[in-house]
Every structure is written in C-alpha cells, then in structure tokens.
C-alpha cells in the first residue's frame, strides 16, 4: 500500500481556494406524532454551522454522540435535505444544484462510512461494490476490471479477492473496500464519517495511515467526522468542535490542541489519555456533569451553559457568537481562555 516514489512529507502544492465552504447550515427534524401526523416540535440537529476547508486539507468535526456531526456530513453531500444554509464544493452550490448537475457533482464528493458492515451490500462481491459507482456513471468500460483491481491494490487489498463477498473480509479490510469504492470516481472531496471508530485499535492505525497517504498523493480534501480528538490528530489540519448542533470552537489543529479556549474543548481534550505513565498520573481530568440537553429544547443562550463550570447569568441570556480569538482561531464563549482552576 506504499508508493515509494512519494516522500512522506511531499504534499502537492496547495492552492488556497476553498474546496468546501459551508455557511449557516441548519437542519431541523420535525417531530410528528398522533394520527394526523401533526408537527409537535422540532429537533434542531444542526443549528447554523459554518466552516471552510481549503483544497488538500482535512477539517475534523469533533463532538459527542448526537451533536449533529454526522448530520452535517450528510447535509454537505445532500443525502439529507438542509433546512437552510449553503454548501459550496469547489464553488458549486450543492444544495441548489439541478438533479443532473447534482449527479455530476456527486462523482466529485464521496463518503466513507463508520460501519464497515452496514455500508457494504452483502449480496455484491467486493469487486462489484467498488465497480458500482463506475457503472452508475457509465465509466465501467473495457478497462473496468483492471481499474477495480488497481483500486484494490491502492487501498492495500489483494486484487485476487474481487470475487469475494463482504462477509469474507475482516473489519479493517471491509473499511478498505469502502475507501476503494469512495475513490473509484476519483473525487476531490471525501467525507469520512468516523472511518475508524468501528475498528479495533490495532487496525485503526493502518486505515488512518492509508487515508493520510491517499490525501498526500491525490490532493484530496477531507471532512473528517470523529468523536475523539485524539484519533484525528494525525490527519487534522483544521478542527471544529461541535456541541448540540453548534460549533463552539474552530481553528488550526495545533492551536486548538495546544491552547483550547472553550471549556467544552478543554473537557474533551482532558479525556485523552497520555501515553506516558508519569504524565498520565499527573493529568487532570475535567468531568462534565449532567447529560447532553435534549435537542428538542436546547438551553437558552449558550447551549453548553448547563454543564459549564464557568457559566454566568449572561450565558443564559445571550448566545455567544463564534468570535475571533486569534486569527483563524474562533471560539463561542463569553469567558474563553485557559482554565487555571482545573
């Protein structure tokens, strides 16, 4: 799976154009109940998310279960219709594209799923799964089988296995099939929806390394969804932290990891174990109290205030905007900064 001609750090020259631009993305799911299917309320899954990912870079969207990160991924690909907001991929408006344009656009943005079992059709052979996007776009020609074999090799699978069925592969191998399928159409943007969370830790490294290498050699842009800040550190150029449908902090990965400003980010980072026993023993953990509030009735003002140790009356009255802390590093908090008390 290595391509020796490419030096580890030789990432192709980046143009500074934005590959993915998301503006004020909102998704409400109506809650219907009763015989007449009347709307009883709204789940605000994604409540105004904005970010920009330059070509060839990785934007990691991090947050706990139910914060809307996977919904954001599906909104970006228009697998779920957005309530409002805009998504531009390489300057093209995804959410308002006509069906024919959308089809063309889809070949440029692909997704890798979390669950390598549910995301592969059990009735198709691995080769047919990888070839499916090619067939859909009429690109499975005489060289089709050869292209599928090449894709298998590219992701570290044996091309002999094209006739095998998904259940005959291990979890890590299945995830590689999913990656090969996503690469088949030679996309520019890959949405990675927790690509390694379902895998054994020993297998995760291999898949992450593969993704890293693919990005370098193909100048791919990644939108990486994860619930664990540590797992994405290797890949992330930019990080956005989501809480209850909103971005609470966003910035370059090194800044965010080293100088987290939002209390929620600090809490998430404090949960990451350090692989050094003396340091690990001295590590202070921030334990958040309470549960994630219901997204049907989010707290007034700052959505994190119910679990925040810095919360003041103002946090309940007004919603903190996502403001510049330093250049490029933005935080949505009235009391940002390092937390010496903890």
């Amino acid at each position: 799976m290595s391509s020796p001609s490419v030096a580890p750090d030789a990432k192709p020259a980046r143009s500074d154009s934005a590959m993915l631009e998301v503006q004020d993305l909102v998704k409400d799911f109506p809650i219907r109940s009763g015989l007449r299917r009347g709307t009883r309320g709204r789940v605000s899954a994604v409540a105004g998310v904005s970010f920009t990912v330059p070509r060839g870079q990785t934007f990691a969207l991090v947050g706990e279960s139910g914060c809307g990160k996977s919904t954001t991924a599906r909104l970006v690909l228009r697998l779920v219709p957005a309530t409002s907001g805009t998504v531009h991929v390489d300057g093209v408006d995804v959410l308002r594209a006509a069906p024919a344009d959308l089809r063309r656009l889809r070949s440029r943005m692909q997704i890798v799923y979390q669950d390598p079992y549910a995301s592969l059709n059990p009735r198709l052979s691995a080769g047919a799964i990888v070839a499916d996007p090619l067939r859909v776009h009429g690109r499975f020609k005489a060289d089709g089988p050869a292209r599928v074999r090449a894709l298998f090799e590219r992701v570290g699978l044996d091309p002999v296995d094209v006739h095998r069925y998904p259940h005959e592969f291990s979890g890590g191998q299945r995830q590689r099939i999913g990656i090969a399928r996503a690469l088949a159409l030679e996309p520019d943007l890959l949405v990675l929806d927790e690509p390694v969370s379902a895998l054994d830790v020993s297998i995760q490294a291999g898949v992450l390394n593969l993704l890293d290498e693919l990005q370098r050699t193909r100048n791919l842009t990644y939108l990486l969804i994860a619930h664990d800040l540590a797992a994405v550190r290797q890949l992330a150029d930019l990080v956005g932290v989501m809480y209850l449908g909103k971005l609470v902090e966003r910035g370059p990965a090194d800044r965010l990891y080293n100088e987290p400003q939002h209390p929620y980010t600090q809490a998430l980072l404090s949960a990451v174990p350090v692989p050094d026993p003396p340091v690990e023993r001295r590590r202070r953990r921030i334990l958040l109290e309470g549960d994630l509030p219901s997204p049907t009735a989010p707290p007034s003002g700052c959505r994190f205030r119910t679990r925040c140790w810095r919360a003041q009356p103002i946090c309940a009255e007004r919603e903190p905007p996502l403001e510049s802390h330093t250049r490029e590093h933005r935080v949505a908090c009235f009391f940002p900064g390092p937390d010496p008390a903890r």
Partner: protein
Amino acid sequence: MRPRDGTPIPEPEPIGPSHLLPPADVGFATAGGVTSRSPWELFRRRFRRHRLALVSLGVLIGLCIVCFGAPFFAPYARDHQDLTLGAVGPSWHHWFGTDELGRDELTRLLYAGQISLEIGLAVAALSTLVGVVIGAIAGFVGKATDQMLMRVTDLFLVLPALAVLALALEKFGHDSFTIIWVLAALFWMYVARVVRAQVLVIREQEFVEAARASGATGPWIVVRHVLPNCVGPIVVNATLAVAAAIVAESSLSFLGFGVQLPATSWGRMISDAEGYVGTSHAYLLYFPGLAILLTVLAVNFLGDGLRDAFDPTSEPA
C-alpha cells in the same frame, strides 16, 4: 505550518491482504496461483449442496416431462375408454386403476397434470412479478405512492376471491388461460406486502445511502441493491404461490368453476372422485392427491435451495 505530525502511526500488525485460502478444488486459477470463484460458480456450489433441492428439481422436471409429453408416455390414448371395465383398482394393465367410465387413471393423471402444472407455475411467476414490482415501488418511493398502492392492495385483499373468480370465469370462459390471469390477480398482494416490508428495511441501510451518494438513481438502487436483498422472501412466497395456485384451482374445480370437461386437472379429478371417500374406489382420490402433494413439496424444497443459493453468506461447506 503543518500541525499534524507527519510520521505514520506505527502499525502493530500487518494489515495486508489476507489469503483466506479457498479450497483449491474448483474455480479457475489466477496468475498468482490462488484460486478464485466466480459468483455463478458459487451459486451452483451452494445449490448443489442442497440434496433435497436437487432431488426436488429432478422431480419437477420429471413431472413436467411426463405430463407435457403425455402423448408419448401415457399408456393409453387420451380418449381411450373401456366401458365394460368400469372402475377397477390398480392392476398390471392399469397401474393406477380405471375410473367409473373405464378410463385409465394414469393417462388421465398425466393429461390433467399439464393443466395443473401450467396453472401453478404460471400463476406463481405472474403474481410474483406483479407483486415484486408493486411492492418495490410502494416501499422505495413511499409517501403518497405507497399509500395509493397499498390501498389498491388492500382492495384486492378484501375481494371475495371465489365470487370474483366465478364471475370472471363466467364472463371470460373456463379455459386455463383465464384461470391463470384471475388467480394471479388474486395472489400478487401477498408478495407485494412482503416485498414492500422488506424494501422499507433495506432502503434505510447504509449501503443504499452509499449508492445514492455515488449518484445512483432510484431504479438502479432498487434493482441492484434493494431487490437482491429481498430474494429470500420473494422465492419463499413464489413457491408458496405455486402450491396455493394448484390448490385454488382444485377448489374451483371442486365447485364446478374450474376447467371444463373433457379437459381435466388434478383438482378436477379429486372433485370428480369425491363420492368415493371411504369406498374401495378411494384410489381415485389418492393418485391426484399424491400428485399435488409431490409437486407442492418439490416446489417448496426447491425454493429453500434457491433461497440459500442466492445468499452469499451461506458458504458451501
């Protein structure tokens, strides 16, 4: 300004391609010397493993050959009749005996089989086709389309089957062609409902969303991703339909709405012999009854075998 550390994470174990060596007996060898099997080859292997299904297939083919080849196989001519004989039990001259009109029972059974098998297989094929199309559209498109199609399905379900049959047969004639269409019209709803339910489950699966993400359109997703995952219930329902159609035709014949004399079917033969229950001529009931039983059992076993053969996760041992 690369925040990410460029060094790859050390990988604790080789994650290269695995060679879960397949048994090297069948399949074509590839360049690497590792054997690989085509999907068709796997299908045949999985099917052949089902002894009972294989036997059943043989029985069905055999039944079709002797019934449709009745002019060659039947011991007597179709209209041969020995009125002096009357109804006598099985003998060397008449293996299955003769009926009250002195007709050879075996000969009648073979000719009757033509109609019963034709109706059973044709009704199953037709109703499955209609049911799969309607169920798949209802389940996949959903919303108003689903509502409309399912109400139509309900409408057909509440039709009093026998009354409709009687009416239709009176109007269009009692030939097997009409019976096939009318029975299919009364049978497709069961398949449609099963397929719809299955499609509702499958269409929410991630691999369907993956297909949509790659730009696939509705028909492609249904044909390539959804329906292949519904094969099990479809095949089971189709085999049940064969049995049900043969039995339904029997009921019709019993009531006098079935095929008209001189043509006959297995069901008609049973209804003709109903008066002999408990007498020494009961053999006139047994043989057509056994023919129906044999056919229905064979079709059911065949259905089991087909369902497993279509399922790649059931590996040949």
